[in-house]
């Protein structure tokens, strides 16, 4: 399964990973549809940035970054399924 994916697309979109991050972001912030995910890929490394409204930053970071780390852990799993290594960052929604 991952062979096919690897063969296919060095720069293909890790859809499931992006969708999972979007899902988690939406579930954690108050209003649906307010989060946005940006990603870039270089080989098997995928960098994802979750943009959330500033007042909601705390909800995705959590005390001591616990929630942020939990998000990273789970997204890493989804990334592994798609054959990519993920890094997740969090940022305020751009004005």
């Amino acid at each position, binding site marked *: *399964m991952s062979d*096919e*994916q690897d063969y*296919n697309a060095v720069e*293909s979109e890790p*859809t*499931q990973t992006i*969708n*999972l991050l979007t*899902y*988690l972001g*939406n*579930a*954690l912030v*108050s209003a*649906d549809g307010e989060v946005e995910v940006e990603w870039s890929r270089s080989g098997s490394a995928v960098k994802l940035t979750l943009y959330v409204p500033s007042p909601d930053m705390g*909800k995705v970071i*959590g005390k*001591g970054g*616990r*929630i942020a*780390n*939990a*998000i*990273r*852990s*789970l997204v890493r*799993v*989804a990334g*592994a*399924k798609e054959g990519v290594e993920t890094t997740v960052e969090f940022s305020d929604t751009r004005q």
Partner: protein
Amino acid sequence: MDWVETTGRTVEEAKEAALDVLGVDASEAVFEVLEEPKSGFLGLSKKAARVRARVRPTTPRAKDGRRETRRRQKGSDGAAKPDSEVTGAGEQLVEDGDAGTSARAAAVTGRSHQKPKARVRPQEPGDRARRSKGTVVEKGSEGQALSVVSEGPSRIELAGLAQHFLAGILGEMGLAGSVHVDSVDDESIELSILGDDLGVLIGPRGHVVSAIQELTRAIVQRSSEDSAGRVTVDVAGYRAKRVKALERFTTQLAQEVLESGEEKALEPMVSADRKIVHDTAAEIAGVGTRSEGYDPRRYVVIFRSDESPAESD
């Protein structure tokens, strides 16, 4: 929570899984299709089908008095592999007509595949699809959607929300499984995810299941008026096994402390695990425990004590 949420590669597969969990025939179940499977690229499933199901209510049942029976027996392999384990218990129970009781019984034991597929009667997806993600239907209130984002959701609703959240994770990750609310009370909500191929959701040393639990707790906390209480999520019986192992380990360590009189510090653990250590040691006469350090590197120390052990956390 009579509703179960399940995922599968196809809607049919998800329904089958739901029936396995409920332990009833398709004709006795009510389904909602929450999400159609999306197949991606090269037919690799990008998103699992997700359905929600419950036993079709036959007679109105009192809400109270149903809860104590809900606790799932831990470590039941039948429940972990609904597709492979055939016990027949569910089959017989459903014949008495009290679908509600049998559903819970069967959820523990798993179920055979003898049900006629032709009798699957899905509810119109359109009707259900209108409901937003954050809603949950409570049993007993026939088809009436209660919004969980309304003020002061009940504990049951919070548990439903958590269940929904977890099923969503399965769906997004394209994993087949089912999500169960094992118990709900004022102090805690216990959920579990069961399925065949969920190793990735456990992760090395349970790292991933801890992350899932952390997120679920955050979701519940966000929606509850006051404290979320304890929220635990188990995946494929992992935690249940780990609790046992930790209890054994603690007991062994406590014996060593008793013999040597020397304190022993355990490795840093999350609060839930520390509680297991505290609780286990509290049962052993002559030892006490205390926690030291700060999260996430807080750890328990077991020491010899003649006083009654004081708990800290």
